[in-house]
C-alpha cells in the first residue's frame, strides 16, 4: 500500500525535475549524443524531402517543390508494366530463398566455429571466410563465370571427364538462381558470422558448466545453451533482413545475369537500372525506391509485432 508521501514523490512534476537533474549530471554524454543526432537529421531526415519527386514529374531546373505533380503516374506505370511485375516476383523469390538458405548459414557457421578448439585453425578459417566479403561483385562475378564456364570451368571439366556434355550454367534458367544463392552464401557467410560469434562470446560460461553437470555433451550444449542464448540476436537480424526483402542483391545479379536468364533473375533493381536510372528518370526510380521501402517497413512492423506477441524478443 502506497503512503501519501510516496504518491507525492511520484507526481509528474517531481519526475520531470528528477529527469532534468539526471540529464544535467550527464550533460557531457548528452552533448556527445547530439552530434550523431544532428548527423542523422541532416543526412537521413532532410533528404526524405526528396521522396516528393516520386509523385512528380521532376525537373531539375524547377527543383523538387516546383516540379509538377503527376497524379501517381509513376506508380500507375509500375503496376501496368508486366516486366516490373515479373521483376517483383523474381525479387521476392530470390530474396525468400536467400532468407531461407543464406540467412541461417552464418548462424550455423558461427556455432560450428565456436566448437573448434584449435585456436590457430579457428582464426585461419575465420580469416579465409571473410575474404570474399571484401571483394566487389565485379571481381567475384568474373571468378564465378570462370568456375562455371562450359569450356574452362572446373565443374564442366568433371562433367566432361565423366562423359557428360558441358552445361552453360550461367545461361540456364534452372541453375542460375541456385548459383546466385550459393555464391551469395560463399561471399557473406564469414562476415555474417561475426555478429553471432560476438553474441556467443557473451554467453555466461556458468550456463555451460551447469549443462555439463546435467550431463550435456557438446551437441546438447550447442542446441540447448548456445542457440537459445543467441536467439534474441538471430531474431533482430531476421526482422531487419525481412525489411530488405525487396533488395535481392543488385550488384551480384547485375554482374552475373544476361538476357537468357532475365525470366528468373531480372529483379526490381536491375530492371529499374535499365529502364529508369540509365535513362535519367530519377522520379521514376524514387517511386520504385519508395515502394520498396514501404514494403520493407510494413514487413518489419508485422514481423516485430508477431514476434513480440509470441516472445519477449523483438526490435521495439
Amino acid at each position: 500500500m502506497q503512503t501519501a508521501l510516496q504518491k507525492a514523490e511520484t507526481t509528474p512534476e517531481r519526475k520531470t525535475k528528477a529527469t532534468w537533474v539526471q540529464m544535467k549530471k550527464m550533460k557531457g554524454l548528452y552533448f556527445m549524443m547530439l552530434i550523431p543526432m544532428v548527423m542523422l537529421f541532416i543526412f537521413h531526415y532532410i533528404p526524405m524531402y526528396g521522396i516528393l519527386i516520386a509523385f512528380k514529374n521532376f525537373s531539375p531546373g524547377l527543383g523538387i517543390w516546383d516540379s509538377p505533380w503527376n497524379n501517381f503516374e509513376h506508380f500507375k506505370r509500375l503496376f501496368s508494366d508486366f516486366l516490373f511485375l515479373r521483376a517483383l516476383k523474381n525479387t521476392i523469390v530470390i530474396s525468400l530463398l536467400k532468407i531461407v538458405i543464406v540467412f541461417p548459414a552464418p548462424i550455423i557457421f558461427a556455432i560450428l566455429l565456436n566448437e573448434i578448439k584449435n585456436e590457430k585453425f579457428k582464426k585461419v578459417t575465420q580469416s579465409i571466410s571473410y575474404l570474399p566479403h571484401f571483394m566487389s561483385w565485379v571481381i567475384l562475378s568474373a571468378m564465378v563465370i570462370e568456375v562455371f564456364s562450359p569450356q574452362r570451368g572446373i565443374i564442366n571439366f568433371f562433367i566432361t571427364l565423366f562423359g557428360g556434355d558441358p552445361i552453360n550454367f550461367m545461361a540456364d534458367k534452372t541453375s542460375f538462381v541456385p548459383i546466385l544463392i550459393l555464391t551469395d552464401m560463399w561471399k557473406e557467410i564469414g562476415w555474417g558470422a561475426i555478429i553471432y560469434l560476438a553474441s556467443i562470446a557473451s554467453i555466461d560460461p556458468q550456463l555451460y558448466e551447469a549443462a555439463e553437470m546435467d550431463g550435456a555433451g557438446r551437441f546438447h550444449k550447442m542446441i540447448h545453451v548456445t542457440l537459445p542464448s543467441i536467439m534474441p540476436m538471430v531474431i533482430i537480424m531476421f526482422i531487419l533482413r525481412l525489411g530488405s526483402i525487396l533488395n535481392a542483391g543488385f550488384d551480384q545479379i547485375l554482374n552475373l545475369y544476361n538476357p537468357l536468364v532475365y525470366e528468373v533473375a531480372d529483379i526490381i533493381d536491375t530492371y529499374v537500372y535499365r529502364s529508369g536510372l540509365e535513362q535519367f528518370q530519377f522520379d521514376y526510380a524514387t517511386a520504385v525506391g519508395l515502394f520498396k521501402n514501404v514494403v520493407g517497413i510494413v514487413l518489419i512492423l508485422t514481423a516485430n509485432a508477431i514476434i513480440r506477441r509470441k516472445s519477449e524478443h523483438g526490435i521495439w
Partner: protein
Amino acid sequence: MNKYIKALSLAAVSGALIFTGACSNKEASNESKKVDVASLPKAGDFSKKLDLNLSGSVTRGKVEDGNYVQKRLEKQFNVKIINTKADTWNADQVNLMVASGDLPDTFAFTTGGKSAQELYDSGLTRTIPKEMLEKYAPRYMKMLSENPPGIKMNLKEGTDNEYLQLIGQYAHVDGLAWGPTFRLDWLEKLGIKPPGEIKQVGPSGGREKIYYTEGAYTLEEVEEILKAFTFKDPDGNGKNDTYGLSPYNNQIHWSATLMGAFGIAPGYNLMEDGKLVTTEISKKYKDFLKLMAKWYKMGLIDPEFTTLDNNKSWEKYKQGKIGYYIAQPSYIAMDDWAKGRAPQNIVENPNSTAKLLATAPEIGKDGQQGEGAYIPVGNLADAFYVSKDVTDEELARILQIFDYINFDNDARWTLYGEVGVHSDWEGTPEKSALKVRPEYAEQEGNSGFWAYNFRTYDKERVSWFQSEYTSKVKNEFYAREDVKEKMLIRPYKWDLLNETKLKDLSKRYGGQLTTIVDEFRMKAIVGEVDIDKEWDKYVENWMNNGGRETLAELEKAPKVSDLMKK
C-alpha cells in the same frame, strides 16, 4: 515521454521539409528574351574582361588550373577561365550535376545527361540566337550550311532562329564503321581463297600481318568458312576447340554486317509490305535470327557468348579459338586507342603467327550488303549547351572561343600544342597522327589539351588523331564515296528535327522494349524458343508494351531521303 518523442520527430520532419522547400529553385523559367545583337560588342572586341566557367566534352575532370591552353586562351580572349573538374564520362556524376542544376557556363557531356529539349524545359539551358552565331561563330555557321539540314536542326519549337544547342561534325565516323575479319592463316591452312585482291595494312608493328580486300564472301560462303573454322581444326592442335563466330551479350555491333546482309540495321526502321516497322519486328530481322539460330545449332557460334560482354569477348578472341570477328578500320590499322581490342589483339605479340583478313561486308541472298550508318542522317551529332545563367555578353565571348578552338584549324595547339615543342608527327608530317610528348599531359592536366574543345572534327582534324594507316584503309575502301553510297543503311524515317514525341516515348517505354528485344534475340539464337512459333507473340508483346505508340509517332517523322536532300 512517448508524446514528446512523437512531437519531436514531427517537428524534425516538418523542419526538414520547410528547410529544403525554401532551398528549392522557384525562379526557374524557360522563357527566352529577345536579344539585341547590335548592342553587343563587335566580333573581336575583347576589351572587357569576363569570367567564364568552361568545360570540355571528352574530359575526365583532370584539368589543372593555370595550364598551357588556359593561359593562352585567357590572354587571347581576355577572359578568366574557371575550370570544371567533372568527369564527363561518369554518368552518375553527370546526372548528379544536371539534377542539382549546378552546371558550368558551357557543357557537353560524354555520357548521361538529358536531351536538349529536356534541359531547356527544365530551365537549365538558354537558347543561342542565330544572329549571334552569324556574328560570333561564322565558321560554325558555315559548317552547318555545308551539312544540311544542319541549319534546321535543334531549333527551339516554333522558332527558326533560336537554337537549343550547338552540334558537332563527325567526320571521324564517316563511312563504314565496321567490317568483318577472318583469320587469314586459318583460311590459308584450310585452302580457302580470299574473295579478292588482298593488300597489307602496313609494313610493320603487326600491321604487316593484317590484310584487307574490297571483295566479300556471300553468306553461304561465310557459313562454309565458319564450318571449316569450327570442325577442321584450323589451329592444328588436334582438338575440336575452335569456333567460327563469337558474339557478345552487351552490344549488338557483332552483327552489324551480318544484319546488313539482310538489309537491316539495329535500332533503325524500314518499310516492309507497305508498312513502317522497326528493324526488331521486321521479317528481315526474323530471317537474320533464324540464320543465327541455325549457326548456333550447327555449333558454329561459341556457346559461351551469352555470358561474355565485349571486353571479355576480346580477351577470349586473343586466346586464338575464334575465326571471325567484327572490326573497325582503326582496329585493323592498329591505332593506339584500339590496342587490346579484338581482332588486332591476336597479332600484337611480335611472335604471333596469326594473320587477319578484313573483307567487305558479307553479301546476302538478294545481293544486300552493308551496315547501319553510324549517324542515321548526315554526319552531325552530339550537343554543346549553354547554361541558363550565361548573359548575352558572355555568350558572345563564348561563341568566339567556341568558333576558334573548334572550327579554326590554326587552333590545333588547343589539342596538341605546338608541333615540335609539345607534340610530333607519328609518321609522315601532316599525313599521320600527332603524338603529344611524354612530358606533357596528353589530355587536360598541365597542358590543358582537349580540356575546352567540343567533339567536332572536319577531315583535317580527323587526320591529327587518326593514324595514316586508318586514313589509308578508309580512303581506299571504308569511306570511299561509292562504298558509302552502296553500303550504308539508313532508317526510312527519323525525327531529326525533334518534331515528334518519340524522345518522350523512348524514355517511357525504352527500357521495356529493349528488354523484350534482347531477351527474344538471345533465346532465339540459342534455340530456347522456336522463332517461327513464337514470332507473332513476340511482335504482339512488343506492340503492347509501347511499340504501337512508338510506331504511330514515328509515322509523323520525316523521311530520311527528304532530310538528306540538299
